[in-house]
């Protein structure tokens, strides 16, 4: 589904991704871990198409298409979803209105007919159950004044509505207490299918107790330096990152 080869990206003059390789197949859950500043969020932003990052080399293939050639909205329409680490507050636009617009723009891109109000309502009701989100939250201005937990739950609700092929969760666990974390993770698990894939970017192992990954990768200095199973995450939790640096021949 996703094939990242030798990806290099910079912001300003600062190189952040320095030849990153990753392959994700349908039905898989990949966790990307790594110390601060390794390039985890940069990877998420580059995949979603954020213009502040300049891709200087490598390629990203998504379902046979050159992802880097597409505008952010085209990537979303192709089925890429980024759950933001810091969801943006948008005063004056309700979540409902925002998502109606998004769904119909995506349907237009795919050559499908627009959904009418009744269809929307029915679909919304179904998706609301998945993430246990309240109607009153959806009527409010998008993310405005939402608590950390509400924002993250809203991200997963948006993911449920847009039903992406590839979901990238960027530090979705940050700022969540354990109950909120469980609700968010349950939502993600319910949305899992053999046809879609998930990349979980996280700093801590605890999210992976709830969203169990098939593969765990360590991102360090802009490259994936180690891959393994979920046991790798446990080992990182226990031992930190220094042993990886040592393996790489760095003096700690």
């Amino acid at each position: 589904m996703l094939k990242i080869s030798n990806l290099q990206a910079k912001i300003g003059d600062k190189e952040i991704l320095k030849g990153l390789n990753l392959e994700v197949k349908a039905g898989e859950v990949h966790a990307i871990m790594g110390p601060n500043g390794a390039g985890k969020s940069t990877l998420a932003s580059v995949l979603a198409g954020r213009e502040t990052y300049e891709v200087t080399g490598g390629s990203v293939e998504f379902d046979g298409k050159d992802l880097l050639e597409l505008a952010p909205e085209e990537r979303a329409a192709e089925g890429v979803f980024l759950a933001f680490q810091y969801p943006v507050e948008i005063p004056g636009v309700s979540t409902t209105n925002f998502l109606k617009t998004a769904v119909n723009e995506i349907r237009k891109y795919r050559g499908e007919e627009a959904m009418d109000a009744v269809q929307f309502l029915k679909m919304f009701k179904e998706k609301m159950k998945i993430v246990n989100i309240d109607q009153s939250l959806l009527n409010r201005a998008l993310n405005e004044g939402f608590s950390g937990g509400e924002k993250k739950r809203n991200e997963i609700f948006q993911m449920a509505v847009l039903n992406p092929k590839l979901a990238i969760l960027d530090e979705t666990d940050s700022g969540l207490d354990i109950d909120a974390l469980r609700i968010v993770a349950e939502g993600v698990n319910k949305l899992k299918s053999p046809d879609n894939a998930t990349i979980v970017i996280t700093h801590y192992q605890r999210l992976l107790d709830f969203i169990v990954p098939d593969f765990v990768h360590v991102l360090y200095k802009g490259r994936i330096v180690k891959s393994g199973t979920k046991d790798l995450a446990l080992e990182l939790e226990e031992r930190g990152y220094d042993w990886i640096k040592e393996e790489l021949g760095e003096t700690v």
Partner: protein
Amino acid sequence: MNNTDLKTQLIADFKTAEGRMNGEAKSAVHQIRQQALERFDKLGFPTIRHEEWKYSNVKNLVNQAFEFNAVTNFSAEDLAEMPIPNLEGNILYFINGIYNAELSTIVSPDSELQIMTFAEAAKNHADLVEQYFNKYTDYQDNAFTALNTAFAQNGVFVHVPDNKVVEQPIIIRFINDARTLNVASQPRNLIVVGKRSEVQIAEAFRTIGDNASFTNAVTEFVVAEEANVHYYKVQNESDKAYHVGTTSVLQAGKSVFTANTVTANGGFVRNNLNIKIDGEYAEANMFGLYIPNGKQHVDNHTAVDHAKPNSNSNELYKGILKGKSTGVFNGKIFVREDAQKTNAFQSCKNVLLSEDASMNTKPQLEIWADDVKCSHGTTTGQLNDDALFYMQARGISKDTARALLTLAFAQDVIDKFEITSIKEYLQELITEKIYQD
């Protein structure tokens, strides 16, 4: 002072009109007109050397010829082409400044309000008109106001007696029909609202046709104790329309006056809103929205004068500027020595959607009292890039995302409209304009 074509024409027109008058020439109202004409003659049209007109150049306006109050064959069919859907209430039509009784409807009973043309009021209710006409509007420093006063004839006179809640709004549509020639009109409205009464009044300006249009409007409000007045000004004129308008308000104690001024379209627009709070525990609200594009120019000058203690004023103007458009906001707050415990808040926020658009803002606070709370803030910026990317990442195209954010920015001013038909009309006008390239 430069003598322009338009000025010469107007002074000649005044003499002609005066020559046709019978007894009215001796009336108190006409004496005010004469004084105003003299003042206009002396002032001449302002140039950009005038501090109040620094960013608003009327050169192109005053070098053109206009037919004032031109007779037109504007019909109900023409009106059907420019509907405000679901319009209900007292609806008055002025075409090129002339009242059109056939199109107009007055539904409120006489006991709630008296409504008539200014000309009729000057003739039949001279006592009422003399009592209130031009009592607060100051034409000494404003040539356009002086000019309007000199020609005060067309427009409406509204009188709401004490203790009346007027159920139906008053909606006055001013349509300039520029299909065959350059036309001009000078509406003069006087609205007197009695103690403890409530009324909603909307003025909607519109032009049709490809020739130039010039509107020089003055509306005066006299708001008695504990009265509550909502005033809406909606401008949807052509790119060749010049609009200079002054609204002057005199508020008594415990009254509430709320003005919403929305400029959806217009070539050159200058709105003056002057409120004098001449009583305690009164409240003045001023809201505005302007969305010029192309080469349009919109200038809002507001002034609130706190003359008595314990009153509040609250102001929010928002601008969305596209193309090579230009905007001006000048907000004056005066707090007189006696006006202790005044709260006055002013805010002007602007979004520039193109590199060529520009906005000049100038808050001007003059405070002589020492125990007051006053604040002001102006911002001019672009749409939030993070918000744009967030929306794009959900599949919304950049253009749609920009339009949604822009509309959201404007929404709180639109939401303050309480006349449903006018609010829906505006919502559509503004949405359409925002989605335009």
